[in-house]
């Protein structure tokens, strides 16, 4: 504790030592916040010690990402070695605003078109977009017919390209994906961080309606507003570069070698002496 005269009196206090916040160990002595020195993980962690995130995520979105995590990593959190994907970052955004522009048409299954806004501020400049999908989930206890075919017209207000018809892929009886990579790529690359989209659906059955489902046209208006998923490649040194580890033996936590010309060359596996 600091006495009035200013000389510090150290009063070792058991509980205060046990309560030492691990992050105070990381703070630099002069207290200057040079969190830029810390790898992004520590920057994120040290900025948010113990506080809960301001907004809680949608439960369906969290359920989807937990399934993705189980597919990509072991229980201990070690990424499974897979050549199927090269992205080392996946971000899921739920729409920050949504308003219906028109009521849906039950006859042809034309869905109400939704104006959705996504805020992509969390996408870092070092994260390059590899793929992007709009993920719809069916908010119904009656699973939709498996042979559902949909066509959707997607318009992104910030995009110069005209609305494009996109095919929808029914992932299983719960999810439907629309690949929007071609529309989103130029926007994310140009650091556009607020995206406004409108989506028009037309769905038809390739088979008779679900036996226990409601007769007549497909009741699609119970689609939950979509999430936007970005599959990114984080190019920072702290991120795990799967393709790099597959091809080169990385030395112990060192960067690539410099050859005589001073240009960076990836470290090839060292031959035993």
């Amino acid at each position: 504790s600091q006495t009035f005269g200013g000389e510090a009196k150290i009063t070792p206090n058991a509980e205060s030592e046990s309560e030492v916040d691990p992050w105070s160990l990381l703070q630099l002595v002069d207290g200057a916040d040079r969190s830029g020195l810390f790898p992004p993980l520590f920057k994120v962690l040290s900025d948010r010690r113990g506080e809960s995130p301001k907004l809680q995520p949608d439960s369906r979105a969290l359920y989807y990402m937990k399934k993705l995590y189980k597919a990509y990593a072991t229980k201990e959190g070690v990424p499974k070695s897979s050549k199927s994907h090269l992205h080392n970052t996946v971000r899921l955004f739920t729409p920050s605003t949504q308003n219906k522009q028109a009521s849906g048409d039950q006859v042809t299954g034309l869905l109400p078109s939704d104006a959705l806004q996504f805020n992509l501020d969390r996408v870092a400049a070092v994260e390059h977009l590899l793929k992007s999908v709009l993920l719809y989930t069916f908010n119904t206890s009656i699973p939709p017919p498996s042979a559902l075919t949909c066509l959707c017209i997607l318009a992104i207000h910030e995009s110069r390209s005209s609305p494009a018809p996109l095919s929808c892929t029914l992932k299983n009886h719960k999810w439907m994906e629309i690949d929007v990579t071609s529309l989103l790529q130029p926007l994310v690359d140009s650091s556009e961080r607020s995206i406004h989209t409108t989506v028009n659906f037309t769905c038809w059955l390739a088979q008779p309606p679900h036996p226990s489902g409601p007769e007549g046209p497909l009741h699609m208006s119970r689609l939950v507003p979509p999430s936007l998923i970005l599959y990114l490649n984080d190019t920072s040194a702290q991120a795990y570069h799967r393709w790099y580890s597959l091809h080169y033996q990385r030395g112990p936590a060192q960067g690539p070698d410099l050859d005589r010309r001073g240009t960076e060359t990836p470290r090839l596996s060292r031959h035993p002496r």
Partner: protein
Amino acid sequence: GQEVLSSESKKPLLPTSFNLSEYFRQFFFPPGECELHDFRLSFRQLKWDNWIVAPHRYNPRFCKGDCPRAVRHRYGSPVHTMVQNIIYEKLDSSVPRPSCVPGKYSPLSVLTIEPDGSIAYKEYEDMIATKCTCR
């Protein structure tokens, strides 16, 4: 000496409970030598579980122990390590002995909830020590 040899040969050379591999292990891996140790923690202990969703358990592991004088190939140490040891022993003991530190790592996948409510899956390099070395 044949009768001596024959009587000697009846006695067991080694006690039955003798474990040969354990016997040699003490030469190859003397106790307290530089090796990998586990440290399992949960993000709840660090009060980060409200925004780190997965993994629930994280074992970053760490390296601890003495570096033997002749490290040679077992620790993947460069020749410099032995030079440093000789300097410490023969010339100047203020030069530290080689230290037992991680030599290889594996990445870690983390699922986090961002401040804006979005969800991020990220893979970070060098988050779990997988091998120790003397440097």
